[in-house]
C-alpha cells in the first residue's frame, strides 16, 4: 500500500497488484498509440457526438436542471460529511430486512468475501450485472482463479468479455468498437449464432438475447453493483436499459451486491433528484428503460439470500483530501467523458484505469495514491467542459490542478520544469534581467526564419515542449518597447 503524507491523515490507498486502477504505462505513451488508430478515433468521434446531442436535448427541456444539479451536489456533500453514520444506518436497515452486510477494506478483501459467498452456494458460474466496482477490484479474475466463471450480461460488457478486451467507457465499455467489429466478435465467439448475422444493431442485440437467455434462466447466483443505496430505508437501486439487470436481480436465489461506500444517499427523497439527473446525463434519455429498487429480501419475489459488500479500496483516503473528496460525488453517468476533447481522441484505454476520462483523471490517482497514476492529472486541457455537464457539479478542473500540485510537491528531485520555473521567477522579479531575457529570446527570430512558429526540432530540454506544441516566434518588439515607441517613455 502507498501512503502519501501531505499533512493530511494518512489512510491506505487501493493496493497494487489487484484490480484495474493502474495502467502499465503513462498516459502520454498510451495516448500516442491510441491517436494513431484511425478506426478508434472514428468510432469514438461518432459515438460521443451522438450522445452529446441527445444529452443536450433532454437536459434543455428540464426547466429546473440547475436547481436539481445544486441539490445533487448538496446531497452528496451532506452524505460525505456524515458518511460513517449513514453507512451504519444503511447496515441496520438492510439487516433488518433480511440482508447481510459485509465490509471490505480493499479489493483483495472484497474479492475474497464474494468468492467465499459463491463457493458456499456450491455453484461454479454466476451472472453479472455491469458494475464499475467489480471491474475496479478485478472480481472476474479472482473468481476465475477460484474456478468460478462469471458471465457478463450487459451487452457492451459481453462484447468486451467475448473479445478478451478491456472496457474503455463507464457507460458503454465497448464504445471503441463499431458494429462491424462487434459482428466479427459474435461470429467468432458465439457457437450458436447464425453465420448470416448482419451488422445491424438490432440483429446484434437479438444475438446477445439468444446467447444469454438460457444462462439467465439457470443462474443461481448473481453479482451486481449499485447506483444508489438509501441509508434511511436500506433500499438499493440499479439503473439499466436492457433488462439484463432485472434478470440478475430477480431470478437467481442468491444476490451479491458490491458497492463503493460513497454510493449511498441519506434519504428516500434524495432519489427524486438523482433519478432525474442520471438518465438524462448518461444515455440522454428522459428515463432509462428499467430501474430496480429493492430492500433486503421479499418473500416470494426475487433472491431470498441477499449480501451487500461495502467497499473502501482507497475511498477513505480520497475522503481525507478536502479538495479531492468531491470526486466521490460522482454518480458514474459518463457525461464528462463524452464532452472531453482529450477522451474523444484517445479513448478510454489510454487512461489505464476502469475510470477513464476527466472523472477518471481525478478519481484513479486518488484511489491509488497520486504517484501510482501521476500522469493522469495532466491528461486534460483544463477546458472545463466536464464541469459544465457534470450533473452533480464536480469541479474537475480544480481537482486536476490540485492533484498536479500534489504530484509536484511529492517529487524528491527537482524536475526540469520546476528548475525552469525557478529560473523564470528570478528573471521576472528584476526588470533589468527581464529586459535582457526578452532581448535574448528575440534571437529566436533567427531560428524561425520568418515563419510564425519556431522549428519543431529545438534542442533539449526545449524539445520536450515543441514535440507536441508550436512555440510562437518572438515578436519583433516587446509590448513595452512598442508602448515606448508610440507614447514616448
Amino acid at each position, binding site marked *: 500500500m502507498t501512503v502519501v503524507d501531505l499533512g493530511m491523515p494518512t489512510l491506505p490507498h487501493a493496493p497494487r497488484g489487484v484490480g484495474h486502477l493502474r495502467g502499465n504505462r503513462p498516459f502520454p505513451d498510451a495516448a500516442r498509440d491510441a491517436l494513431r488508430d484511425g478506426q478508434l478515433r472514428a468510432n469514438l468521434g461518432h*459515438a460521443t457526438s451522438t450522445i452529446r446531442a441527445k444529452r443536450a436535448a433532454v437536459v434543455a427541456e428540464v426547466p429546473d436542471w440547475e436547481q436539481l444539479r445544486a441539490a445533487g451536489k448538496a446531497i452528496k456533500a451532506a452524505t*460525505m460529511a456524515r458518511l460513517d453514520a449513514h453507512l451504519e444506518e444503511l447496515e441496520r436497515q438492510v439487516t433488518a430486512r433480511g440482508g447481510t452486510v459485509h465490509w471490505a477494506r480493499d479489493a483483495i478483501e472484497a474479492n475474497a468475501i464474494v468468492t467465499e459467498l459463491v463457493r458456499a452456494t456450491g455453484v461454479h458460474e454466476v451472472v453479472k450485472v455491469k458494475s464499475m466496482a467489480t471491474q475496479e477490484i478485478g472480481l472476474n479474475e479472482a473468481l476465475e482463479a477460484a474456478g468460478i466463471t462469471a458471465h457478463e450480461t450487459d451487452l457492451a460488457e459481453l462484447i468486451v468479455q467475448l473479445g478478451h478486451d478491456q472496457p474503455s467507457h463507464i457507460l458503454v465499455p465497448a464504445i471503441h468498437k463499431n458494429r462491424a467489429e462487434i459482428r466479427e466478435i459474435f461470429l467468432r465467439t458465439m457457437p450458436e449464432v447464425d453465420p448470416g448475422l448482419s451488422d445491424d444493431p438490432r440483429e446484434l442485440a437479438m444475438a446477445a438475447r439468444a446467447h444469454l437467455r438460457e444462462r439467465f434462466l439457470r443462474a443461481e447466483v448473481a453479482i451486481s453493483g449499485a447506483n444508489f443505496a438509501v441509508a434511511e430505508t436500506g433500499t438499493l437501486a440499479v439503473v439499466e436499459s436492457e433488462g439484463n439487470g432485472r434478470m440478475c436481480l430477480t431470478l437467481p436465489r442468491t444476490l451479491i451486491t458490491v458497492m463503493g461506500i460513497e454510493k449511498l444517499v441519506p434519504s428516500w427523497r434524495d432519489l427524486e433528484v438523482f433519478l432525474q439527473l442520471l438518465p438524462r446525463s448518461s444515455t440522454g434519455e428522459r428515463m432509462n428503460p428499467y430501474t430496480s429498487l429493492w430492500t433486503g429480501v421479499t418473500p416470494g419475489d426475487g433472491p431470498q439470500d441477499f449480501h451487500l459488500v461495502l467497499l473502501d479500496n482507497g475511498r477513505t483516503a480520497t475522503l481525507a483530501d478536502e479538495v479531492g473528496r468531491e470526486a466521490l460525488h460522482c454518480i458514474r453517468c459518463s457525461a464528462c467523458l463524452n464532452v472531453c476533447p482529450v477522451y474523444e481522441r484517445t479513448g478510454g484505454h489510454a487512461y489505464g484505469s476502469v475510470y477513464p476520462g476527466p472523472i477518471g483523471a481525478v478519481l484513479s490517482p486518488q484511489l491509488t495514491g497520486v504517484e501510482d497514476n501521476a500522469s493522469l492529472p495532466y491528461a486534460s486541457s483544463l477546458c472545463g467542459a466536464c464541469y459544465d455537464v457534470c450533473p452533480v457539479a464536480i469541479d474537475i478542473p480544480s481537482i486536476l490542478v490540485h492533484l498536479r500540485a500534489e504530484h509536484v510537491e511529492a517529487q524528491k528531485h527537482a524536475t526540469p520544469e520546476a528548475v525552469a520555473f525557478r529560473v523564470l521567477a528570478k528573471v521576472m522579479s528584476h526588470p533589468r534581467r527581464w529586459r535582457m531575457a526578452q532581448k535574448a529570446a528575440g534571437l529566436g527570430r533567427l531560428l524561425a526564419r520568418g515563419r510564425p512558429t519556431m522549428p519543431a526540432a529545438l534542442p533539449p530540454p526545449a524539445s520536450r515542449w515543441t514535440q507536441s506544441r508550436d512555440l510562437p516566434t518572438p515578436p519583433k518588439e516587446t509590448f513595452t518597447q512598442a508602448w515606448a515607441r508610440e507614447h514616448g517613455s
Partner: protein
Amino acid sequence: MSSRNEVLARIRTALGTERAPVPEIVRDYRTTDERPAEELLDVLVDRLEDYKATVLRCTPGEIPATVVAALDTGLPAGWAPADVVVAPGVPDPWRPAGTAEDDGRPAVELADFSATVVGVAVAIAETGTLVLDGSPLSGRRALSLLPDCLVCVVIADQVVGGVPEGLARLERSAPLTMISGPSATSDIELSRVEGVHGPRTLVVVLVG
C-alpha cells in the same frame, strides 16, 4: 480490528475531529405539477410513444375489450389466451377469458408465456415511466420480465407529473420496478435499439 470497524475508523480519521457542519440541501426544484390531468395524460402518451411503446386509450367500461386489443397489437395473430398470464390481483373484468393467473410457480416457468397483463402503482407523465410495486395488482418482478409482451393497465388517477410526485406515492420497502418503454440498449455506437432481454413489446392501456 474488524473490517467494519476499521473502515468506519478510517472515515472518522478522514473527516477529522472538528467536523464541518452538514451543508443545507435546498430543494427548490419542481416537486409538484399543476397542469390539468388531461394534459398530463397527453404528456404520458407522448413520452411512451417516443420510446416505441403502444398506447391504447379507453373509458373504464371499455377495459376488457381494450386489453384484448392490446394483446392483438403485441402478439402474433391467432394468439391463445392460455399463453397469457395475469398478476393475481388483476380484476376479473380485465382478464380475457382463458388466461392463466400467476400462481407462484417457479419464476423461470413464467418464460413459457407469451404475454403478461398487470396493473401499475403509479405512472410518471414527464418521463413516460410506469412503476410496478410487487403488489398483487402489479405482480412479482419476474412476471413483468420474462414474457416477451407486457400489457400494463394505467388508470388516469394513477398518473402524476414528475419524478418527485411519483416516488412520494410508493411503498418504499416494496420491490419496485420503474419501466420506461420496452427494454433497449444503446451499447452499439450509442444508437438506441428497442428490445433486448426484457419484454420487447410494451402496450399500455390508459383508462380515463
